């Protein structure tokens, strides 16, 4: 496991798709993860506090899916050293 300096600011790319993107009004952004955010679920709680658009997009957090470095994860997943987290509705391809 790589060492990481837990006190250093952690920058991460956030991406939003489909109606999550439309509601947040943002397709992607780089953010600095606040202290205390260690899981995807923690991140969602913080995102909701950023304004009414985010409040709306994550109003029902259970219907928003997440991917950590382009792999599906549950909200309990640890962010650790991930570089990219994406949020989107349940997929409807095929």
């Amino acid at each position, binding site marked *: 496991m790589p060492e990481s300096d837990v006190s250093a600011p952690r920058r991460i790319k956030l*991406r939003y*798709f*489909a*109606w999550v993107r439309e509601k947040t009004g943002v397709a992607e952004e780089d953010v600095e993860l606040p202290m205390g955010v260690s899981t995807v679920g923690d991140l969602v709680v913080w995102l909701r506090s950023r304004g009414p658009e985010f409040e709306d997009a994550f109003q029902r957090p259970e219907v928003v899916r997440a*991917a950590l470095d*382009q*792999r*599906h*994860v*549950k909200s*309990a*997943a640890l962010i650790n050293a991930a570089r990219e987290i*994406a949020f*989107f*509705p*349940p*997929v*409807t*391809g*095929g």
Partner: protein
Amino acid sequence: MAVRVQREDFDAGAEVRLLTSGRADVGAVVTFTGLVRGEAHDSGDARCRPLTSMTLEHYPGMTEAELGRVEAEARARFDLIDSLIVHRYGELTPGENIVLVATLSAHRHAAFEAASFLMDYLKTRAPFWKKETGVDGAGDWVDAREADLVARQRWGRAGEPTA
């Protein structure tokens, strides 16, 4: 074994010819082609709105990775000689192709099962989102179907997101 995500159309027959060309060990080829239907998805009420177009958004990078993982899972489960997934994105009109899955095997049951598995998995894992535009110009995101989750669960729980 290949995965392609593309804007342009595909030719299922030509893809299969490329896959089988020059080999004599393939006894069975199954293809699935998904097409845009001219009706919007059922949305609770029973009325079916006519559809003008469907736009597929996807997650470049993750789409290819996820389709690759789905295909690897199929090849671990079934006795396949080769397989192919082609998925389109962008705006498509009724009658147009959306997705192609092709499976090659010595025997028919592996080819059928693998193609069906690929579609069930892809439907619940590949990061695509459909937006339907009706004749009134209004766009609606298609809801995920419970039936697709049930279809996927018949293959067991492998590959579900970990906590």
